[in-house]
């Protein structure tokens, strides 16, 4: 039997990787990937807790909804990135400084 701790460690690692991806990627799509990593670590947490702690399966429901939210969020974000690319021919977030004072 796999312990709950294993899941939590994995999800914590994935979460931290996601945070680092967000902080260090210059490419907007790369940052989006980091967000997906975070959301997947959340899902893993919820499902593991639903299996080990909850008497109901609320956590699994939350995970389903988070998958869907992640997809819709990614769809919107990609559409925005696409729009950005049409204007600027680049998706490098460090070059976005139209409004720096």
């Amino acid at each position, binding site marked *: 039997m796999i312990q709950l701790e294993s899941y939590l460690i994995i999800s914590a690692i994935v979460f931290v990787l996601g945070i680092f991806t967000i902080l260090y990627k210059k490419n*907007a799509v790369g940052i989006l990937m980091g967000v997906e990593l975070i959301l997947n670590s959340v899902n893993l*947490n919820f499902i593991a807790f639903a299996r080990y702690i*909850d008497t109901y399966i609320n956590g699994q429901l939350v995970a389903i909804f988070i998958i869907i939210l992640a997809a*819709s969020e990614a769809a919107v974000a990609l559409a925005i990135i696409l729009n*950005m690319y049409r204007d*600027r021919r680049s998706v490098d977030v460090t070059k976005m400084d139209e409004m720096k004072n």
Partner: protein
Amino acid sequence: MNNLNSLQYFLPELFLSASILIIIIVDLLLKKDKKIITAYLSVLAVLVAFFLAYRQYNYAFTSLFEGMIVLDSFAVYFKVLTALSTIIVIFISMPAFRRHSEYYILLLVVTLGMFLMVEVNDLLMIIIAMEMVGIISYVLAGFNKFNMKSNEASLKYVLYGAASTGVMAFGFSYIYGLTGHTNLFAIQQAIVGHSLQPLPVFIAFVMVVAGLGYKIAMVPFHFWVPDVYEGAPTPITAFLSVGPKAAGIALFIRFLITVVAHPASQTTFIQNVQIQAPLLLAVLAVVTMTLGNVSALGQKNIKRMLGYSAIAHVGYMMMALVVFNTRGFTAIMFYMVVYMFMNFGAFWVVQSMTPHLGSEDISAYKGLGYRHPLTAVAMAVFMLSLTGIPPFAGFIGKVYLFAAIIKQNWYTLAVIGVINGVISLYYYAYVIKVMFLDRDEEIKAISVPLYDRVLLWLLLIPVLALGVYWGPLIDLAHNSIGFFFGN
């Protein structure tokens, strides 16, 4: 209450959902030059939802959809407020967005999201409602597709927003793991009933505060605000600083009261998790208002300046959150209404004047007091009200906020708040100075359409009226919060 029986208490939301679908279909069938009809239909839909929500005011506390959603007067107060903000923002947008009918439909969806946000009672629903508001806001911020600034604003907004939602959801997953429940009431009971490890609770709490703080533009999660506020279309900037923010604050209050507060007294934070919540919130409030005000000082773009001032106002409201009692919450709810009118007023002046002045820079407002006195005077009133100068509504709002914290002996906090008010006077008064004291040699009068003037008056009158006669509104706010404390 089970799902089918809940539907009768869910009328405003059901009506909004149905009207969104119908308006999408109607919009497709409209000819290109008749697209403005969508805007009229949207106003009508929100108005009906507004009255349906208002009718719920006297309902007793009801828990809907197996505890996913709760209906209480606190939720109704904020529902009415957010519906009103949507109506105003549609009127603000109408002159500029005559062709883009999707814009109004998206606003309706945000309204539905805000309705849900103020009545959630489950971790799952919190995530869904916040994303519903968030995702649509990202699109709205970038609605001017061919404007570089607008694009950049929406890209920054979506990336930061997605990340903060992820972090918040991670915090929720730990809360769920610690307590085994997603229902907020059940979570509270579990926290009180068991002695939990303080560290994971603290981590989860901080992560959740990060997510919610992002939504209400609280320092240190504010970094998206200036760019998004400057880049987004002006009506959307105004909307983001009022509607979703009000919903975010409502959610924040509800989360604090139902999860972190002690169920017996409900005015103190739970002791056994050892979170120094009041102190933490006080520090955040101080940092938020100070940073907002200091950054606003040197701004040249008026939208960016108002963006920073919006951060400062969140700081003022959070100040009253610290005391965590009826008085504080009442002050916040009152201030939110006042803030809505004065902020929308300021942004409406920006929106209606930008075509005439040709720029969003503060320097472009030079001599406006002679070019169109009514607008300039109105803008001066909004600025003074935002500063908190009597006899305008902003002053009354601030008095209640400060009274709430002084009653609980948070003197240092109050002093810092007052100092911040003085700092803010500098940049608000600067706008007035530019409008009235600087003048060109020749005065080119601006002719403002009737529609613009009427809307200006409609926003100006509440600011003036609430400055002298605020009793009913404060009573309403007080009654709305009452149920949390059992009266």
